[in-house]
């Protein structure tokens, strides 16, 4: 499947459709700060805020690890950052000699902010990261020079493109993993 086929380019889609966005993130935050009650409630609220902050930090680290591993070409390790079928999907994409793959990300300054939304129960989350993505097109074909070029790590094309990564996360056994990852070029809805 090609990243060029549609504007909303499929990347790794192991779970349900992405729902939450920037607005939802603001909403959760505002609701949390407006919630004033008994001391016990305040403790619970603080615990929730602390857990929320820890989760956000863990997910940001996960995202940083992911982009570092992709840029380093360590796709096997990157696949381990996904849960369930998404892990296999990601790994399969990177061994598919026909697939256009991402080989690097740069954090991008955007008029929209990156967003992380953690669910009430703290077991799932969504994230949006504005990035410049390096899209790498493989050398295709089974003729001699194509095989030799691939053997040398040569590709047909490398280019950078602005877009955003939209991810879904789940927490299991205390560890966050991605369950889906979409890449959408700028302008895609």
């Amino acid at each position, binding site marked *: 499947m090609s990243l060029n086929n549609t504007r909303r380019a499929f990347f790794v889609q192991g779970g349900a459709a992405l729902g939450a966005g920037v607005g939802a993130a603001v909403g959760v935050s505002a609701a949390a700060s407006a919630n004033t009650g008994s001391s016990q409630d305040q403790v619970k609220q603080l615990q929730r805020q602390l857990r929320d902050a820890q989760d956000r930090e863990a997910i940001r680290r996960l995202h940083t690890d992911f982009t570092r591993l992709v840029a380093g070409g360590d796709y*096997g390790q990157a696949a381990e950052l996904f849960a369930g079928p998404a892990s296999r999907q990601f790994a399969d994409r990177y*061994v598919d000699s026909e697939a256009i793959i991402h080989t690097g990300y740069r954090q991008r300054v955007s008029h929209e902010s990156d967003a992380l939304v953690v669910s009430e129960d703290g077991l799932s989350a969504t994230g949006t990261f504005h990035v410049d993505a390096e899209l790498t*097109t493989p*050398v*295709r*074909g*089974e*003729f*001699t*020079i*194509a095989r*030799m*070029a691939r*053997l*040398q*790590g*040569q*590709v*047909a*094309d*490398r*280019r950078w493109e602005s877009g955003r990564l939209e991810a879904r996360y789940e927490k299991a056994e205390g560890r966050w993993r991605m369950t889906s990852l979409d890449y959408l070029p700028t302008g895609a809805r």
Partner: protein
Amino acid sequence: MSVRNYRPLQMHRIAYTDLTEAQVTQLLKPAASGPASKSPFSNALAGKHIKIVTADGGPTLEYTFKNARELELSENGGKAIKAGYGALEDRSLVLVSHLIPGTHRGFNLVVDPETRLATVFEIYFNGYAADETAAAAAANPKRQPQFKNGRRNREVQRKIWFGHLDGAGAPLGKHVFTNRMEGRGIYWKQDNDIEILEFYLTVSYSNLIELTRFGGEMTVCAPSDYIMVNDHQFIYSRVECEFTGTFTLQLIDLFDTTQKGVRLGLTDKDELEYYMYSGKGEITGQTATFEVFGNNSETRGPRRVYRPIETFETMTDDDVKQQVLNHAVTFGDGQGTGAASMGGYRSELITKFVGKQLSVKMDNGGPAIDYDFTDAKHLKWRYHGDSNWREARYEMYEPDNELYFFAHLLDAEFPRSCAMVALDVKNGLSTVVKGTTGTAFRNNETHPTYYFGVLNMEGGPTPPTYLRHGWTDEMVGQCVTWNYQPGNPGLTSMHFYATPNTYSWIIFNPDGSGGMQWSSPGWYSKLRDGVYIMAWVEEACNGTLGVICFNQRLMHDAGFGYHVGRGGLSLSSIGARARHAGKFEIGDYVGIKT
């Protein structure tokens, strides 16, 4: 004239003996006394004691040179061993070569007592299997080790260690890998009468042709190392992988174009070859290089080795017959654009002959074929005088003004052929390259047969009686890059038209430097000034026949590929954009001797 006695086959056609470790060790026994040399050995190190300390986990080598032919070596502080050695000098550099008696390993040193820098080549036989197994296990993704052609105990392995002479602190500077030799070509005349053309076209391969070797019409390629000592002295090494596995190491001095070298290996007759040599050279040319400025290729990963003979699958007669008769595909049978193949820059299809008839007649009993072009992609053809018209799919291009090139499959028989036909309407001439499956060595290789003749068509010129397209060596020495697919860099290679009978191709590394390279036989014919038909067969490699009509005014081609393999028989189109990359003046060295 060199009197070396080779087997009378091209190097890629020789079935080299898969020697056992014991056989190799036995064959190496005479090497314990050191190499031979026509020129006198150097005694620069005689009576001296040096300790070479290397970096990156390399060995520490402590030498005592008793005289010009005997040394003692303590490796990593171990017990000293005695060995014969040879040494040659180039200015302040000393090239030393020796094996360790009773083993299959040894060292070649390049030592500079003035700068106190040293480069160590640790060499060993019987090492391919272990090294290949480890490399396959470390590959990402993992792969199976390549052992189709045996354990390759005969193939010399090498490790390179950069270091210095111990004492008085570490010296300034260092020997480094380099691309400063990339693109050069040198003709060498060695002191043992061997004449050789070497082309250092990439940072990890070299291309060579021994002019004094029987059957030396064809260049061969070998994985190579290039190390810069200073701006005029370089260390060059190669291993003739896929062939004898012989190791060559040279000091090249570009101030006076001289060489000092050592050659170690087992010949195609399984005889020890271990000698040092001196030589005098002539620069033959320089091609362009394509790294960005500032990229000096001083750092690199493991040297990749292209092993086409290892990876080429030899199919049985029945397998090939099945494919050519039942799985033939012409120009994708109308599917696809060719953009992902070698036809990403094809010109527009020519349709001007639709509805017309013409015939070509080749000389000397070659084919005479009548054509009736049904539409833009289908034609009818018959051998002249035969009433039976056959239908075939074709594609036609116009590589030069009123010069057309098209191709189609011939009868469904085994072996199976195709016709690649040039119609020179301005001159009433035609050239046909008939591609046919099978060679004396493998059925899933192809081979071309050239025919020169005339074109008959209504409204065309009277076919000439004497004038013909013909063979040429005008392209010999030229280098041209070919960009086959759009993109940056798309799919790009460089052709080197090395002799009247061969060419080689270079694959670029991601940083633009030249990388792996391989050779094949090549055929060159001239149609018009600056317009040529060039053909090659990837023998013992992919088996493919490629035929291009190359217009050097347009720097563009139109051509066809003919291939048979597990995926069937295919006739496909080639269309690429060229850049001139340089030329070697080698016409006096190759071709017919006068």
